[in-house]
């Protein structure tokens, strides 16, 4: 039983990663592809944060009478990664808007023959 308790967090995060990854690959609409990309990245952030957590520890901000802190380093990495994710989303959505104006559609199966997007 303790084996499950130790790892359920990681397994759910893996499931979320694969859900996001599946949406990216199988989505037909480009906006939904970007949503899938965000879900995939957010679940990777959850993997980082859940490795930094110490049971019984509190947030890494010094408060009197607290000895056990969670690890601040994954938080720093994920602060960077979240903003990187939003930057990629913004450029992706700008591309979707331009594709809509150029092609008239953002559905992947409606692009003419060869320049379709995975």
């Amino acid at each position, binding site marked *: 039983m303790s084996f499950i308790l*130790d*790892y*359920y*967090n*990681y*397994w759910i995060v893996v499931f979320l*990663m*694969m*859900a996001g*990854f*599946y*949406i990216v*690959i*199988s989505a*037909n609409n480009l*906006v*939904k592809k*970007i*949503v899938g990309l965000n*879900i995939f990245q*957010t*679940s990777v*952030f*959850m993997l980082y944060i859940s*490795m*930094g*957590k*110490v*049971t019984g*520890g*509190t*947030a*890494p*901000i*010094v408060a009197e009478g607290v000895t056990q*802190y*969670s*690890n*601040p*380093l*994954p*938080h*720093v990495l*994920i*602060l*960077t990664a*979240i*903003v990187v*994710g*939003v930057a*990629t*989303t*913004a*450029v992706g*959505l*700008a*591309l979707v*808007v331009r594709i809509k104006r150029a092609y008239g559609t*953002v559905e*992947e199966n409606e692009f003419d023959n060869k320049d379709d997007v995975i």
Partner: protein
Amino acid sequence: MAEFIDLVLLAMLAMLALTALRIIFLKDLFAVVMLFGIYSFLSALIFLNLDAVDVAFTEASVGAGISTVLMLVTLAMTGRKEKQSTHSSLLPLFVVLVTGAALIYGTLDMPPFGHPDNPVHQHVAPRYIEESPKEVGLPNMVTSVLASYRGFDTLGETVVVFSAVIGVLSLLGVRRKKKKDLESGLETHRVLHVVAKNIIPLVILFALYVQFHGDFGPGGGFQAGVIAAAAFILYALVLGLPKAFAVVGPRFLQWMAAAGVLLYASVGLYSMYKGGQFLDYNQLAADPIAGQHYGIIIIELGVGITVFAVMLNIFYAFGSQAERSNVQ
């Protein structure tokens, strides 16, 4: 107490998994974006429960706020219904299952969740937790690691945000508002006008509080920049883009974005000039701790300015496209 937190965490992770599943099978894109908003809120809540306070702050404001608003504006231009995709979903399923199996295989040797003696907390982290309040002098260890120990990462990240606005501007470009354009914005909602007018000063005040409170509590440059941008986005949504352009013009925002990055890099150059390494704040003042304080406050300001200018400029670029497609 501990098992209560585990229970709450499990419940929220279950809700998150349900939301993700629901998004996979939804065809109505508006619902997908709404559920993505919930997904970001929930993951920010889980970060809060995992003691990642700054990350919850950023995920809520950046992930749930800016991304959802941008997606809604994009959807306004690209239509609501996703068509049925022609090629079969077997290959994607296979690829996903293989990657998932590899990840699960990877989790077998992972150190257990939450144990204090995991290798993650052994090698590099103890110094951040014990010495950073003394060496850098800030109660918020995340800000001291973010700004001082790994300041180069944050500079790289500010440049990533800067290159995002370069990308969006080159793709969409901000359309200058001609006076004759119809006064768009929510004219009919008198209630919203009044409420927005009263709330926006409060929100900007809160953004400044977050900016300068970043050393002692959760907050910092990124979160403050996004909240200030959110205030102006609210103004633009309610009163329309022409008025928003009059308040803060897109040209000025491009200068502000560049100035923020240069402010950050000039702190590094100044510390090089004073004989230390790049971004070494100990050189900034006689007493190293004071130098760290100066350095961190200035670069957080640089980051806040850049993120505010970039997020607002991106919204202007998207908003003016929506107006254009709506006007003609």
